[in-house]
């Protein structure tokens, strides 16, 4: 029996298109795998199929999965697909296959004995936790124009999951969060919605969180009609040029002063601190400048 390996683009839409293709061609999940990006080691006796990302197909998959598996499961899948782990495509595909085959009772994501569901659940938790951490660890600096600017370097592609939280928190602020690794921007305009902006591609990315919350089927791309009124320091193919406001430095200094004096000397425990706030986060946090 030959195995079929679907090679998909390493973005959520790519994976979902892969799932679509697998079902379209009636491939058996037992002999089918999804691989992301370029293949390094070709395997003998395997058939390789290149999958062209198709947003429409991906939307179809998302829609029907919501009907069949429920919104909660699909939300878990979206988190898992945002992971940086290479096996995420395969895990998600096989989890979907398990779910559609109906080989479980109750909530699919509780079926942790299954290796694929288990892996998906792990990836989901990992991404969810990182997103939650960044809800706290994002640090905004005020630019001269009054815009709040922040840079992050997350392992997983968590920026889409931050939009809702920060928009709700700062509805009256213009802010901008930049994922340095992926050159992805989350842009929010005061009193309006937010949207994601991918610098290289020059196009806005599919909005995940909004539709997730409302359980809507279609992915509406935000910001199409509402062009930003303020000039954001983002330009095609350029590093943002940043001038901070005059007060910015003073307030950062105040915060560091607070951090220093609120710690109890008798209980000092740098190891514990590092366990809770690993070094990889600190590069972009004013706490440690």
């Amino acid at each position, binding site marked *: 029996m030959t195995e079929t390996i679907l090679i998909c683009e390493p973005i959520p839409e790519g994976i979902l298109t892969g799932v679509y293709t697998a079902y379209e061609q009636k491939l058996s999940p037992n002999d089918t795998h999804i691989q992301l990006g370029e293949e390094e080691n070709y395997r003998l006796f395997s058939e390789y199929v290149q999958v062209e990302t198709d947003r429409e197909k991906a939307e179809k998959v998302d829609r029907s999965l919501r009907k069949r598996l429920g919104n909660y499961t699909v939300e878990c899948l979206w988190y898992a697909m945002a992971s940086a782990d290479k096996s995420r495509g395969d895990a998600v595909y096989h989890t979907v296959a398990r779910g559609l085959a109906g080989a479980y009772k*109750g*909530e699919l994501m*509780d*079926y*942790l*004995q299954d*290796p694929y569901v*288990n892996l998906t659940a792990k990836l989901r938790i990992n991404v969810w936790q990182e997103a939650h*951490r960044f*809800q*706290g660890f994002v*640090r*905004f*600096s*005020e630019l001269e*124009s*009054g815009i*709040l600017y*922040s840079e992050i370097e997350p392992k997983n592609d968590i920026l889409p999951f931050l939009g809702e*939280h920060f928009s*709700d*928190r*700062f*509805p*009256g*602020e*213009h802010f901008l969060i930049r994922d340095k690794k992926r050159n992805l921007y989350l842009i929010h*305009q*005061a*009193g*309006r919605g937010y949207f994601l902006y991918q610098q290289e591609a020059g196009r806005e990315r599919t909005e995940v969180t909004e539709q997730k919350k409302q359980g809507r089927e279609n992915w509406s791309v935000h910001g199409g009609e509402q062009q930003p009124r*303020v000039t954001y320091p983002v330009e095609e193919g350029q590093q943002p040029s940043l001038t901070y*406001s*005059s*007060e910015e430095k003073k*307030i950062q*200094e*105040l*915060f560091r*002063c*607070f*951090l220093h*004096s*609120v*710690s*109890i*000397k*008798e*209980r*000092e*425990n*740098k*190891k*514990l*601190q590092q*366990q*809770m*706030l690993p070094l990889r986060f600190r590069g972009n946090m*004013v*706490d440690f400048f």
Partner: protein
Amino acid sequence: MNQLIGAVEAKKSQVNILDDTRTLQEKLSILSDAAKYDVACTSSGVDRSGKEGASRFGGEAGVGGSVSGIGRSTGGSRGSVSSFGRSTGMGNAVASGICHSFSADGRCISLLKILMTNCCVYDCKYCRNRVSNDIERAVFSPEEIAGLTMEFYRRNYIEGLFLSSGVIRNPDYTMELLYRTIYLLRKVHHFYGYIHVKGIPGASPRLIQEIGYLVDRMSVNLELPTAQSLQELAPNKHRKTILTPMRQIQEGINENKQELVVYRHAPKFVSGGQSTQMIIGATPESDYQIVQVAESLYKKFQLKRVFYSAFVNVNEDKELPALTSGPPLLREHRLYQADFLLRFYGFEAKELLSEKHPNFNVFLDPKADWALQHLEQFPVEINRAPYEMILRVPGIGVKSAGRIIRARRNGSLTFEHLKKIGVVLKRALYFITCSGKMMYPTRIEEDYITRNLLNVKERLPFDVSGTTYRQLSLFDDVSFDDSNYG
């Protein structure tokens, strides 16, 4: 309420009794240093979107978005940005709480934790801010606190404000100052983030009531576990004045729940519940007494949390014990473990400790200790036992127990499955069976299990200098057991 504000306004001119001309940074340094022993820096228990916040706190006092620039003593020029779009206020609250940073002692920083002032008319022996200490004193003005909170919050440094205070003049006066600050934040700055305020014992019930509608959590410090030690170490405070506001808040919350059933949009009162804290190790109470106090606080006062703070000797007072090896961190840790057993694991204080056995085991966590005393209830069959019993197995927590219950609906579980779904078996394996089988041929025997549990090194959040070595003996070792001689 307007009357009240009027009263506060009138007293405003008297606030600067110290004629405090220090810079904001100096004040922040002094007053956050003075607040650092308050442990309850959590931001959890309230889920409120920005919109809800606006409808709960906004729309009063006749101020629109245009005022939001007022009082930003520390703030930069908002310039063009504040001129449009800034109509909705700022902030929300997330029930799980969010940690924003971690200080060098490893504790989470989620709230801007400061005292309004460290001037205090009381003379509590354990407190650095007591009146008889010669230390630098400072006072924040409400505007300064509001400005700091807003600027920190919009940079996502903090989740909200934790405001406490030394007692300046008298409890009522202090509480009014706190009220004024929070009123300013909520109604003028339209801040809808988390606010935790300390209730000052002895303040009038009316003030507590008013402030309760503006904050998310309130706490009145118990300070010490028993009334007697309170009398000895904090002569100005009385158990009664501490418990009175606590009871008032509890009743307020319960009444408010009834109101909310009838009127969905009734103003919420201390929606995050109340907490308290007590100092551990300054007085001779046993762990049993402390846990009993905590239990009755949870049961009778419906507190959300009781916090324990290991005593740090800042004053070198003759009434206080001398600490040779730093604060009693291990004891504090064990108390927190027991506290969680009370709140989430269905344990009762009298199960964990007793008059005869009044203190926690240094080497074993309270749950393992309990299990070893009650071996007749083990082993527990994973595929059949009720949730409550699975929860009592050492090494299995709320998360794992939940996963087991959910996963076993889809077929019986083996040890392999347990490992896969993330149940840590290091300690649990001595107490459970899967389909009637133990993982290894282990025996249900106190001595044997104790020794093995001690080999599994407990992960403590700090270093403990206590040896866990065992005296070598010829007669209780495994290989010399009777069974080996057949």
